């Protein structure tokens, strides 16, 4: 067995394969299939200060090699999480990361301060890239000043590993990555979903209640991979690669492009066992090429 361990700032992962926020619930749903302690880490469903009902149905449309979602951060709020969910999941033997959301900087801080008190949450992922909410979310993530402002304030409120999740809906993602690095982010994760749209030609109506939604899945992989490669060259902090990862080869491509770890998202809907297959596959890959550690492939793209 090769050494699959990687580190994201102070966060030690047993392997680089994690689950993406919003695609694995609060970990329990995946634990219904297998022991989640095998995973590198789990990014929990996006959480806001208070209950959010999310957007109206329909929230989903299938697209070629992908899907659009317009969930809109439906969640019961951070207090409900702390009281009802956290106690049930906190002893899963894998890092659980809270995905922090808000409509204002104050709201981000409110969630962050509460999570800061939770012993078993070793890191947060600051979601400044959700395209499905009217206020906050992506609005912060598409300009440097916006991204800097949230990161700066949240950094003050948070003592553990701070990961900032970037939006791909920008002209130059490495500029945003450098901006949040400058404000003390310990890591960046990318990409969140691309803003897309679907129409029913027969009814002449949008397929999503919100008209536009977030595109995810293999369709976006080539763009996500390019962005991860650009950002990994632009910043010194570790990068977490996300976007359309469906199998071992995809995950390895992101590692080669410079990601220290990856998140599997939409692929879970096709098959929640994919992350385990990827962990096994990375190990086989390392053994095939006689490498001792997964660190040997991170950023290992040959030019």
């Amino acid at each position, binding site marked *: 067995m090769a050494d699959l361990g990687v580190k994201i700032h102070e966060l030690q992962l047993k392997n680089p394969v994690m689950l993406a926020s919003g695609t694995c619930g609060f970990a329990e749903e995946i634990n219904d299939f*297998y022991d989640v302690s095998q995973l590198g880490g789990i990014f929990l469903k996006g959480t806001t200060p208070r209950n959010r009902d999310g957007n109206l149905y329909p929230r989903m449309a299938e697209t070629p090699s992908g899907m659009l*979602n317009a969930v809109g951060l439906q969640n019961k709020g951070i207090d409900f999480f702390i009281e009802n969910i956290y106690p049930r999941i906190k002893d899963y033997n894998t890092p659980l990361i809270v995905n922090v959301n808000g409509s204002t900087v104050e709201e981000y801080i409110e969630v962050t301060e509460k999570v800061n008190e939770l012993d078993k949450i070793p890191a947060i992922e600051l979601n400044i890239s959700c395209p499905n909410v009217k206020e906050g979310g992506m609005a912060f993530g598409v300009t440097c000043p916006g991204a800097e402002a949230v990161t700066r304030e949240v950094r003050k409120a948070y003592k553990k590993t701070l990961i900032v999740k970037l939006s791909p809906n920008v002209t130059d993602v490495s500029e945003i990555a450098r901006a949040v690095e400058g404000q003390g982010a310990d890591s960046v994760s990318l990409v969140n979903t691309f803003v897309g749209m679907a129409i029913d030609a027969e009814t002449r109506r949008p397929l999503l209640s919100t008209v536009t939604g977030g595109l995810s899945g293999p369709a976006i992989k080539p763009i996500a991979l390019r962005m991860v490669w650009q950002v990994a060259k632009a910043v010194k902090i570790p990068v977490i690669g996300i976007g359309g990862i469906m199998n071992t080869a995809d995950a390895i491509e992101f590692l080669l492009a410079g990601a220290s770890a990856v998140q599997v998202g939409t692929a879970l809907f096709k098959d929640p066992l994919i992350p385990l297959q990827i962990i096994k596959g990375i190990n086989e890959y390392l053994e095939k090429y006689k490498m001792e550690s997964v660190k040997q492939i991170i950023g290992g793209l040959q030019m």
Partner: protein
Amino acid sequence: MGKKLVSDFLVTENIALNKTNFLIRLASDIKLPSISPGQFVNIDINKSNEIFLRRPFSVFEVDYTNNLLSIIVKILGRGSKKLTEIQPGEKLSLIYPLGKHFTIPDKKDKILAVGGGSGLAPMLFLARESGLPPENVDIVIGARSVADLVDVDSYRKYGNIQFTTEDGSTGTKGFVTDHHLLKNEMGKYDKVYACGPDAMMKAVSSMAKKAGVFCEVSLENLMACGFGVCLCCIEPTVKGNLCVCTEGPVFNINDLKWQI
């Protein structure tokens, strides 16, 4: 752990019931867990460039001795079409068992099960599993025309099966709600169940509500995951937005926010 499974099934039969409905029988290598009427499976139809997500189908029959599970697929769009073209010998990946089942009737209940379109399978499964004497089970099946109906004779031993067709080509002419069991005798049932097109379920619910009878319906909201992680399949309820795939697909009509 192990409450839900992802595994490959072998297609053993694919029988055309009529032009648009197919009965597909699937064999599992591993022992099937207990599955109840209303629960569903999520199937990977990985046969074309255009189909990315799985498609949910209600379980129709389970044979625990031979580890067989069957579904009835009605052709609606691209995925269901492809699925009905599958050949015995091919494999299908299923995620199962998913969702909550119908409330199993009490020993002496009189029940009415109303099915239409793709909602037939769970209604027949329920009739069979109810454990009730056939005279306690009324089943009304609605269709556009006799050509859209499938042969359900083998289910007559589980209940009294009635038909309605919109064109009157067999059974009562009209919608299921035009059937006298619904129009005139709703009050006699302890439990009413419905599965099928939205409009049908709402009409049945409304009659059950007026009659003050317990009524459950099975929703077919669009799903991405089928096991509660994506929050795409939600239905507004008195308890807030609930996932149809985990808190449903079966709902008591009193919990729904339907205007009925």
